[in-house]
């Protein structure tokens, strides 16, 4: 009898506690597979807010960059995916689209649409299965952007003000400023030159695009052209190497994104081109340069404007999960697009994908000073690879760029070799490409 009374009390207390929480889960729990990036803490904070606001449960499976890709591949190819939302990188999303792994979001809910405020990043959210290309013109909506990862220039505002320098808009100006501000204990610039999955290749895009070069061009019309050994790419890489040799880190070929960010956070670098992690540089527990880092679009040249690679992240729902999980995943993505969520995302130190938030009055506040640079850089942001063989091309570029930077291979030879190898990868995959012309 006493036992029964105790049990009743405990049950009553549980019911009251549950009622007092104010919200109850309306959707099934979902699991999101995501990589560990500088912007991850902001995403995590937003997920926690979602859970608090809705009572729904979200589990995050956090991995290194390459590990996340492997898990996503394995998940979508299995009978049933353990993940309800995949956070796909701009370098690789097309293989998930073209393989038929992703569920068109309007098939889950015909009323679902992408908010007008959300950037589509060159239509990378859509896939036209018939034409086998990325396009919202006739293509289905397969994903929602979650992070507008682009490279922007970070520079030490305090040192600039002290020296009376202007924000560089060309690489030559950046070189002069870096030269003026470098000391024995401070690098003019720290560049990410290490070979990885999509590391050094991502870092060199602003250099080569702003000199008229590229890696594989004309992807949008399907004609493809290997431009990695074009004069423009050569000029861009020469600029990269000049900065590395004269004002850069002595170990540029060994620098990862983490190293580059560390160099800025510890005051060892005057400039870095990096995906913004503003929360980090203004955090006293992690940074020695709180309030001293300012932001601008990457430099360009007198002939070509600033251009930055889209390394954005897209959230998609795999086909091989149950209907209730698809609904739950879509509920999260719907909430994520809201103004409230996007503001919370920015407040947590990550970059929102909403134009309305990026251009709001938040951008005038000092702690969100990176927003204007990001908004200015995005119109010139470009997709890098939109074909499923991107991982094989990246294996080539990561190696050859790194060899050129580390001095293991002369630049011209590295670019020519890369051009031959990329052409072979594409030809083997069935693309009709001519043999590349060689640089002297």
């Amino acid at each position, binding site marked *: 009898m006493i036992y029964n009374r105790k049990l009743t009390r405990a049950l009553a207390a549980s019911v009251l506690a549950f009622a007092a929480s104010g919200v109850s889960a309306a959707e099934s729990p979902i699991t999101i597979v995501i990589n560990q990036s500088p912007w991850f803490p902001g995403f995590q904070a937003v997920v926690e807010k979602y859970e608090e606001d809705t009572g729904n449960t979200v589990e995050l499976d956090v991995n290194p960059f390459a590990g996340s890709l492997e898990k996503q*591949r394995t998940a979508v*190819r299995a009978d049933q995916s353990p993940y309800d939302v995949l956070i796909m990188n701009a370098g690789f999303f097309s293989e998930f689209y073209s393989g038929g792994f992703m569920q068109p979001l309007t098939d889950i809910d015909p009323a679902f649409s992408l908010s007008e405020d959300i950037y589509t990043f060159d239509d990378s959210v859509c896939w036209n299965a018939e034409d086998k290309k990325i396009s919202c013109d006739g293509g289905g909506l397969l994903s929602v952007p979650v992070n507008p990862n682009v490279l922007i220039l970070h520079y030490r505002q305090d040192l600039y003000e002290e020296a009376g320098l202007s924000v560089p808009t060309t690489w030559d100006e950046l070189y002069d400023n870096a030269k003026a501000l470098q000391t024995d204990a401070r690098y003019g610039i720290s560049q990410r030159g290490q070979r*990885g999955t999509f590391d050094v290749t991502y870092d060199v895009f602003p250099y080569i695009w702003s000199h008229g070069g590229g890696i594989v061009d004309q992807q949008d019309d399907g004609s493809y052209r290997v431009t990695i050994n074009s004069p423009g790419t050569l000029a861009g890489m020469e600029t990269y190497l000049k900065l590395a040799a004269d004002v850069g880190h002595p170990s540029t*070929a*060994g620098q990862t994104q983490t190293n580059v960010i560390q160099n800025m956070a510890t005051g060892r670098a005057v400039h870095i081109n990096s995906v913004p992690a503003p929360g980090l540089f203004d955090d006293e527990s992690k940074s020695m340069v709180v309030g001293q880092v300012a932001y601008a679009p990457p430099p360009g040249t007198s002939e070509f404007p600033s251009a930055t690679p889209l390394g954005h992240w897209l959230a998609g729902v795999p086909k*091989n999960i149950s209907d209730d999980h698809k609904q739950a995943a879509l509920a999260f993505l719907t909430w994520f697009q809201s103004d409230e969520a996007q503001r919370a995302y920015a407040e947590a130190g990550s970059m929102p994908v909403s134009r309305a938030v990026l251009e709001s009055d938040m951008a005038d506040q000092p702690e969100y000073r990176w927003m204007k640079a990001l908004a200015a850089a995005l119109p010139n942001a470009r997709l890098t690879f939109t074909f499923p063989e991107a*991982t094989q091309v990246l294996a080539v570029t990561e*190696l050859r760029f790194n060899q050129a930077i*580390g001095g293991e291979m002369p630049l011209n030879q590295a670019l020519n070799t890369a051009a031959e190898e990329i052409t072979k990868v594409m030809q083997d995959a069935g693309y009709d490409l001519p043999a590349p012309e060689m640089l002297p």
Partner: protein
Amino acid sequence: MKTDTFWRHATLWPALVLFALLTVLPLIKLFALSFNDVEWINREAVWDWVGLANYARLPEDNLLRAGALNTLIFAVVAVALQMLIGFVLALLTVQVVRGRVFYRTVFILPILVPGIIIGAIWKLMYSYDFGVLNSFLAWFGLTPQDWLGNPDLALLSVIIVDVWHWTPFCFLLLLAGLESLPDDIFEAARIDGATRWQQLRYITLPLMMPTIAVTFVFRMILAFKVFDEIYLLTGGGPGTSTEVISFTIYRRFFTEDQTGYGAAMSIAVIAVIAAGIIAATRATAGKGAKA
């Protein structure tokens, strides 16, 4: 008697079945995969028979060539150093009568540390800007070194970590071998006036040869499979200076998703390692003195 023999065999069958399920079947699948290219169309894996084409690509793969050469250098240098240092440490430790357990415990500590922590520790120590090694050099007024970013230094830096990590393995096996040697032979040698060097050269080394051979083969197999240290410290770079075979297979198979080609590469490497083990076993068979 026949029943005894039957049961002796029967006790091994569960292990044999498990081995077949977990090792032989995946190997057969890998072998079959190596003659195909796999493409995913509408969520379906489409196997395209390519015959020996994947194997024919192997000699042209410059990453594989670099990986094979680096793996060979890495394995030979690292294992030679581990065997030498491990043997010297074991010889010194076996002389200690009181407190031997203490030395043994201290010397085997590195092998107990998980690979991920070893990677983090050494990456910090090798850091150009913040590493203790460069701080040490600076203290003596020497130029800081780019331990992991310089193509001429990177492989050596990784070998040093591997030697630090795996020498205890050699030490432990060789110490066990030394401890099991019969004392009476050494005693007789001492009575006959043999010097320490002569005892080492003519008694210890011949008697230890089987243990040395087994330790060497074990370590060579593990060294050929090195992955975690490379992954954590250099990612195979700079350039191809620390590229090793297992990392090349990982890239081709997983990152680049060339499963057929990656499978061919795996089968070829397994064949080479198996041939190496057989050759090493034959070469060392009968070399040791019979105790």
